[in-house]
């Protein structure tokens, strides 16, 4: 327990230091945040334009989809804000930075997480939270009690894919392009009601690549739409747990790969 508290404290200390370093490049910071927000905003603008002509998409209204979109985006930002350093893991390995990580008395993943500050993800978070607040149905205590774990669970689902694939680069396998593709699939397909896809696609996005668990199922619960799910309502209520389970698994993969780390030749 004391070890976890120490790791969290040091995470915060190191991440703040990295942030201070990044903030020295002010123009770059601003542009990165804006680009992140515009990128996500343009994705939502598509939905908005389409629904200007067609008021319903898979049985969901514009407002409901905006809420779904916000939920997913917030979860995504929550996943990528701390994990954006994993994007450059190949580089850390090649440059020998990981050697230094292994030389310090602190969990290696915690150290890797603080190597970079994802400014673009701040833009994601802004857009996500704004959508979430603007489009939310009237809140009550029970909803908030479900929403918070739901966002965390969604973030963990995404995080587990990133972490397990990234850890392969500890053995010199470059999975950046594959991760980029999966990230794309999560962002694109996760932001729509699964009823739009139906059939095989919906099945795949639920049981093979659990995109539906990130935001669609929690949003269905919060918007009281569990009746049209392809799984029992109970599963939707328990959806945050999947993230916890998957992440535990992914962390095991990471530790395993770390044991096989071969360093670089320099």
């Amino acid at each position, binding site marked *: 327990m004391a070890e976890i508290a120490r790791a969290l404290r040091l995470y915060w200390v190191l991440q703040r230091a990295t942030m201070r370093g990044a903030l020295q490049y002010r*123009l*770059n910071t601003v*542009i*990165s945040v*804006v*680009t992140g927000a*515009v*990128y996500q905003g*343009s994705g939502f*603008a*598509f939905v908005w*334009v*389409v*629904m*200007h*002509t*067609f008021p*319903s*998409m*898979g049985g969901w209204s514009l407002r409901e989809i905006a809420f779904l979109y916000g939920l997913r985006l917030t979860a995504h930002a929550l996943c990528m804000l701390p994990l954006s350093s994993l994007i450059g893991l190949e580089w850390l390995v090649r440059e020998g930075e990981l050697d230094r990580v292994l030389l310090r008395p602190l969990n290696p993943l915690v150290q890797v997480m603080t190597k970079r500050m994802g400014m673009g993800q701040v833009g994601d978070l802004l857009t996500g939270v704004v959508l979430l607040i603007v489009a939310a149905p009237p809140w009550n205590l029970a909803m908030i009690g479900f929403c918070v774990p739901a966002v965390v669970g969604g973030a963990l689902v995404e995080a587990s894919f990133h972490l397990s694939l990234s850890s392969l680069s500890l053995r010199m396998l470059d999975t*950046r*392009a*594959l991760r*980029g*593709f999966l990230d*794309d*699939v999560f962002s*694109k*397909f996760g932001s*729509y009601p699964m*009823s*739009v*896809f*139906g059939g095989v*696609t919906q099945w795949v996005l639920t049981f093979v690549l659990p995109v539906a668990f990130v935001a669609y199922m929690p949003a269905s619960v919060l918007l009281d739409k569990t009746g049209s799910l392809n799984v029992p309502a109970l599963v939707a209520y328990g959806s945050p747990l999947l993230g916890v389970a998957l992440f535990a698994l992914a962390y095991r993969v990471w530790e395993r790969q770390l044991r096989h780390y071969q360093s670089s030749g320099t």
Partner: protein
Amino acid sequence: MIRPLAGMARVGLRFQLAYRSDVIMTVLALIAQVFLLRMVWTSVYGGAGQARGLTLEALLAYLSLANLQAFATTPIIPLIAHFRIRTGMVFFDLSRPTGYLPQMAAFQAGHTLGGLLMLAPAVPVVLLVGTITPTAQPLGYAATLTLGYVISVMMSLLICVIGFWTLETGAISLLYRLISQFFAGTMVPLSFFPGALGVLAEALPFKYMGYVPAAIYVGHLSGGQVVQAMIVEVSWIAGLAVLLWAVWRRAHRRVVINGG
């Protein structure tokens, strides 16, 4: 004059091919994107036969085409220029007798060619997903697309030149890519854009890189509209040429001052 440019184009081609393992994933992402659009649009159309003058079949064909076009013509030179300005390699480019802008344009052309080569295996899949049939206006399609490509390259060159002032074109070019793809109508045809947004999209030149050629292909635009589009495209090219020339002259003087 021609030989160095051909060399630059070859470098651009090789640059594209060097990243082919990444490109496999990008092509997969393209296919996923077209697939997603098809799902979403099919769902919202429901039983409706037509919306904004487009049948669902025509719309799906339009979307596949527009996305293929956008993929193949993605501008790369702002990123290249960014790198070369940062590392000072731009001075080699400037010292060659064939001007800087023609070199960059040649690089982009080679890169696009590489993109087309790489795209070849994906085309049948995308066409299948998007159900495309032969067009009734092949000439109009080819002409507007070619002119649209020229406009796109000129806009990218403009961003490259701006790099001499800002010394930073990486994030700007990403922003440009996002905005241009949105207003090119790669996800929604311009006819669906409501109110002021529609007026804006119609006024901007981005539509010639996606919407206009693709809409001509599926017959959404035809006859006089095609000719009119071509005239406006040529005017844009002329306007951009003047602008580029003026901005370049200032940029060049700036570079000389910096160097001296």
